[in-house]
């Protein structure tokens, strides 16, 4: 009898599913899916390394997506869920480094880099050659006289 009841539950669940399978049914994505993907895209799949949890087909990524879904269903905020994963796996799980002791460098460096490179380029463009070229010596009085004589000769 115990076995019978244990069987009854899946059968009862399956009957409506079979009914649906017979007629064309539109499958809907869970309402929470959008938020789930948004969170999963920020997290690294720990076994595949190159991929985010949203893209990966690995088992652990699937489990993590399920966990995110459960937590969203339980009413947790995205930030709470992210914190949970960081707490569990460390900063490694975040694909976008945080602005903390280690990560801040990555956020400051591009800006500093742009400022420095722009400064170098600006300095290069503002450079005046005058200081580098030797200054021509002033004409001696005789030379001046010769130039004037030559000018007079011109028609």
């Amino acid at each position, binding site marked *: 009898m115990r076995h019978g009841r244990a069987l009854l539950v899946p059968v009862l669940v399956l009957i409506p*599913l079979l009914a*649906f*399978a*017979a*007629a*064309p*049914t*539109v*499958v*809907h*994505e869970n309402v929470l*899916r959008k938020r789930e*993907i948004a969170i999963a*895209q*920020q997290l*690294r799949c720990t076994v595949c*390394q*190159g*991929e*985010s949890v949203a*893209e*990966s*087909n690995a088992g652990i990524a699937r489990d993590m997506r399920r966990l995110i879904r459960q937590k969203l269903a339980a009413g947790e905020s995205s930030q709470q869920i992210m914190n949970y994963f960081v707490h569990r796996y*460390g*900063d*490694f*799980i*975040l*694909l*976008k*480094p945080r602005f903390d002791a*280690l*990560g801040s*460098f*990555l956020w400051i*460096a*591009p800006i500093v*880099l*742009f400022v420095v*490179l*722009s400064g*170098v*380029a600006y300095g*290069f*463009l503002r*450079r*005046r*050659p005058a200081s*580098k070229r030797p200054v021509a010596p002033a004409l001696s009085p005789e030379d001046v006289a010769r130039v004037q004589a030559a000018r007079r000769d011109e028609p």
Partner: protein
Amino acid sequence: MPSDVSLNLIELGHFCAYLAFAVAIVQMTAPIIARITHRPALAEISVNASVLVFLLTTIGALTIVYSFVTSNFSVRYVAENSNLQLPLFYKITALWGGHEGSLYLWTWILTLFNMAIGLHGRQRYPDRLPTILAVHGCLIVGFFGLVLFLSSPFTRLFPVPLNGNDLDPLLQDPGMAIHPPMLYLGYVGFSVPYAFAMAALLTKWRSEFWIGHVRRWALIAWGFLTAGIILGAWWSYYVLGWGGYWGWDPVENASFMPWLVGTALIHSITVQERRQMLHAWNIFLVITTFALSLLGTFLVRSGILSSVHAFAISPAQGTYILIFMMIVLVVSFAIFLVKGRYQQAREEWISPLSRESLFIWNNVVFTAAATCVLLGTLYPLAIEAMTSQRISVGPPYFNLVMVPIFLVMLVLMGVGPLVPWRKANFNKLRGRLIVPVILGLVMGIAMRLWFGPVRWTGPVAVALVSFVATTIIASFVRAVRLRRQQQAKREGVFAAAWSTFSGNRRLYGGMVVHMGILVIALGLTGSGLFQESKLVMMAPGNIVQVAGYRLRFDGVMHFHHANYFATQGRLRLLNDGALLTPERRVFSGNQMGISRPSINSNPLRDVYAVIGTSHDGKWAVHVYVNPLVNFLWFGGLIVLCGVGLSLSYRFRTARSRVDAGAPWSAPVK
């Protein structure tokens, strides 16, 4: 079972590879000995050696291919990367399917370029050719050292296995067959400008004599690198089945960094050509581009990263490449620091509003972009090496940092070609800018209104693309009109347009490249901001709707192929009745399972379906709708056409034929 001769033919290749190594040493040392003993004729040996090295390396490569085709599993590399069921096409491409073979291909292409310089330089720059070949010979010796002593594809395996392991299933795709050779032609292609730059430093070669050659070689390498990167993205999109094409994976970044610096180089080299300035900076860029190519090879081949590409982990090879790279870097930059300023710029002053000034800003942006990618790629490795902590730098970071940089590049791309050399007339420039700017603003605002709230990058990108496209078209129209006004005989519009275009293919080839980049930018915007996807469990008969596209799941079919077993999902796109057949393949060789997406494509959007595992009679189906992805591939084709057009135009460069026969003559005072 292969016969004795064919079984051992690989040893002939092995022997030829050793010979090639020896000949490369001769090529490297002959010019040096010639210099020391004052016998210039001796240096000629290296020119002949450059051809011989290529021929010997080719024999080596062909024997490896022959071993693959005859399934000679006594060769370890063949046994690891092939098996009897593998289709013939993939047996051939398996040459670069694994670690050792990839490095051999790298070296083979290096020798190909080596021979190309030798044949190209005989008539054009015979006096400096031996030095160039000596530098290039050093690189070949370095890579042959790796190929022969640490990562040999010729190693034998006894006892001989009956069947081999399999080629990585992900690599069994036509896209993957051509992606590595293209990428390597790009990477290795930059070794030619590098050899030129080092020879220029060592022999104080006046830049007027080499700049034209370096520009062409750099452009060729850049074209191949672009093709390689786009084919890589294409492969990633069509094979990996994650709905995207670019993941800011360290291996992708490794190819992107030399591309960025190479782009800076092909722009700033024009400044050197036109105004005889920035010599030292260009030499610096050449060295950096090649160094980044080596870094890319190191990152991919050392196993320091674990990703789909880094399929080998071998510390000795990694250390070798690292040390080789360090030697190349230290020696090159030391020579650069000592001799870099050997040639004074003829002019020094640059107007802030001139083409050359804008090229300098282009260099700032591209160098900064490359450095940002470099930081994001290496910083996690450095942190992991120095502290025990690990952090990740992934797509969310790179998109946030790089997209604004790309937008700045687009601004420069629009303004730059409008500004004349030397000094621009501000009012004239304003007049040329006004229509494109207004049109850009209108398009940006229209996009914002049409699509509703999107990220700020969307409307800005559309505005900038319209702006740049308008400036390019307007400039061309102005040039055609001017030509028709100046011509005494009235020319038809099309005839005038054609002669304007073909009369300056170098410039308009570049503009075609810019147009291609704009098309790619549209593709990136569309697919980056407007991708929609759903991951659902589907039973046969179920329908899923993504972004207005309805797909009905009609169950699965099973297929036995020569070397894999496929479970094919059948999805009917109800909008137009097309059938999508994503597959899950399990390979018989190594029991590895991969997903192969199926794509219904039209110019404006792709419907992209992936099938996963089944559970309770339902299948995990991931459907993406990716707008404008085809723009990427089409834009890439336009870019390559532009490069070809630009190269087809021969810019007359100063030739050093006068100096022929006197190898070390006429250094710059």
